[in-house]
């Protein structure tokens, strides 16, 4: 089924891989860093897209999972660095794979707890209660002194991945790119699966789903947990990219930005988050280089997209979404 959207998606995937590699060999490693940032934010937004795009769950609190992933990386690395045991005598670690697993589990558990209460509500109430939970965690992180509070927590040397020199920009980019690819494949599989069918139907018509005997609450909760896990892994990657974690990863601005990425790219579209993240990061970088007033122009551009490009950029290019 090689339709326009598939071709467009492939082109985006190839560009996101080829450009950083080219930049690296052209002696411009910074663009590799920029592409890494795009890949990581994309992965976080792919996670949110699962809840928001497929399930219609407008979470204004996904920064919570992003930050939890980040703090998992930071805390495990800092314990590995200092040699102090974590809890129950368990040591910290510098292995990314372990960190990702722990981040996923931590993100999943918190998403389960937040979802358990939040999913009782709907609409604007859901938007606001997810925001409230994220704010709770944000304030906790700021005022909890053990891991740096507002000052944040540095990761002195980027964590390790077997057989890869993660300190150099390109290999680290490739790790992030690979995880994004896995994330996109999982998203596609889930969207097309029985669970995905139930989830998308829940967004369209909750009563219908219940009256065929599928419990919408449990479907949504599962989607929210999976979504939180994706975003938590992205948070761990982001911490390693910056070699630093701070409560700003938990701020409501970040939750807003993740939503912005998705709308910019196209809600519910497979590559919506990727396209959105690429445009947002490049705009931020490009405008920031031109003028101190870049936020003003960023605002104007976002406004233009909402008002005149419904369905986001992917929608603009590949036409309306179709469901089988």
């Amino acid at each position, binding site marked *: 089924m090689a339709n326009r959207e598939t071709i467009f998606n492939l082109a985006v995937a190839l560009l996101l891989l080829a450009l950083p590699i080219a930049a690296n060999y052209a002696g411009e490693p910074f663009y590799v860093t920029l592409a890494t940032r795009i890949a990581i934010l994309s992965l976080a937004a792919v996670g949110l897209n699962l809840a928001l795009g497929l399930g219609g769950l407008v979470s204004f609190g996904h920064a919570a999972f992003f930050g939890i992933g980040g703090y998992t990386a930071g805390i495990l690395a800092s314990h590995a660095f200092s040699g102090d045991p974590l809890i129950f005598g368990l040591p910290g670690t510098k292995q990314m794979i372990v960190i990702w697993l722990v981040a996923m589990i931590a993100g999943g558990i918190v998403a389960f707890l937040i979802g358990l209460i939040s999913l009782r509500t709907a609409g604007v109430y859901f938007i606001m209660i997810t925001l409230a939970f994220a704010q709770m965690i944000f304030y906790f992180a700021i005022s909890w002194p053990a891991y740096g509070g507002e000052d944040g927590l540095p990761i002195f040397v980027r964590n390790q991945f077997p057989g890869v020199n993660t300190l150099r920009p390109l290999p680290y980019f490739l790790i992030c790119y690979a995880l994004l690819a896995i994330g996109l494949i999982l998203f596609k599989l889930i969207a097309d699966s029985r669970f995905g069918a139930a989830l998308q139907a829940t967004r369209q018509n909750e009563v219908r789903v219940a009256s065929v005997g599928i419990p919408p609450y449990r479907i949504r909760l599962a989607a929210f947990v999976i979504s939180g896990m994706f975003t938590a892994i992205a948070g761990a990657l982001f911490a390693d990219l910056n070699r630093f974690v701070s409560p*700003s990863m938990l701020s409501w601005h970040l939750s807003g930005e993740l939503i912005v990425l998705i709308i910019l790219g196209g809600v519910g579209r497979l590559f919506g988050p990727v396209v959105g993240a690429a445009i947002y990061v490049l705009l931020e970088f490009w405008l*920031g280089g031109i003028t101190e007033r870049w*936020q003003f122009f960023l605002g104007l551009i976002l406004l233009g997209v909402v008002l005149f490009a419904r369905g986001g950029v992917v929608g603009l290019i590949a036409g309306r979404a179709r469901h089988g």
Partner: protein
Amino acid sequence: MKKTLGALALGLTLGLSAPAMAENVKVGMITTLSGGGAGLGIDVRDGFMLALKNAGANNIEVVTEDDARKPEIAVQLADKMIQSDQVDILTGIIWSNLAMAVVPSVVAQDKFYLSPNAGPSPLAGSQCHQNYFNVAWQNDNLHEAMGAYATKEGFAKPFIMAPNYPAGTDALTGFKRFYTGDLAGEVYTQLGQTDYAAEIAQIRASGADSIFFFLPGGMGIAFMKQYAQSDVGLPVLGPAFSFSQDILGAVGDAALGVKNSSQWNKDIDNEANKMFVETFQAEYGRLPSLYASQGYDTANLIIAAAAKADVKDADAFRAALKEADFASVRGDFKFGNNNHPIQDIYVREVVKEGEVITNKIIATAFEDHQDAYAGECGM
């Protein structure tokens, strides 16, 4: 008058840089120019640029970028400046949390970092680094000065207050390091809090004889306005941050009489400072703040070091920086073992000069003060 001063200073600086023809230096400035707290970044940048202009230092190229007060953007910009712009020195960061995000990885990549404002304690102590120089103060310094001043003035029951975040706890710790008497109360407010009625009621009920508070930015403005209206009327002490020139205008008469600690003020009597204050006003049409003075000193430190050594020769340049052989607007200035300043800290009082509300030095809290973390630094 203004012209002669400028020419004189120009001559002085040229005289200094005459021996070795200064090598080119590329400086990356990451500072906050948009969003909350942009005023501080703008002052640091303006002070820095003014110093380059006054010295005619066209061998120093500056790349300036806005971090919007977000750590992850600051880190990204640092990567860009090192990887793409190939800068030799980074500077400009205002906030401790951003400094903690950027500095360790910058110095690990063998670049120099000169802090014009933030001085978080880990960077002064256990995580100090030979390539990291702080040209402002260690975060605790101004609070320590106020603690010493409170002791000297015989206050017996201060009520102390700061926001609940690391710089806030450091502030109260710093104060208590030099004030060891009784406290009427110790309160941590929420970061970003704007209403202080509850705290003011507690102060009134606590039987305090004075108040020490650290509330930077809008929080301090809000507290001072509300406090002045409350008729509590106790003497107020604080660090310079809540009473710097950029904020006093918004607080208005409510700030008059407040004692605050600073390593700089516009009435410090030396040639460099006179020229700084004069030319800053001429250039930007406003009085300089302490942030501007720190930016100005940072630039002059770089100019002086670049005149002595090539920045590509890291060891020589580091030694040149460490000498701190420049005319600081603060007067005496030298670096301690941990590359943090050893300097005098003054007590200022907020006064009205004509229609302008500003600060005047009334006492010296510390002479040649060094921070408390220097001993933890292995250098």
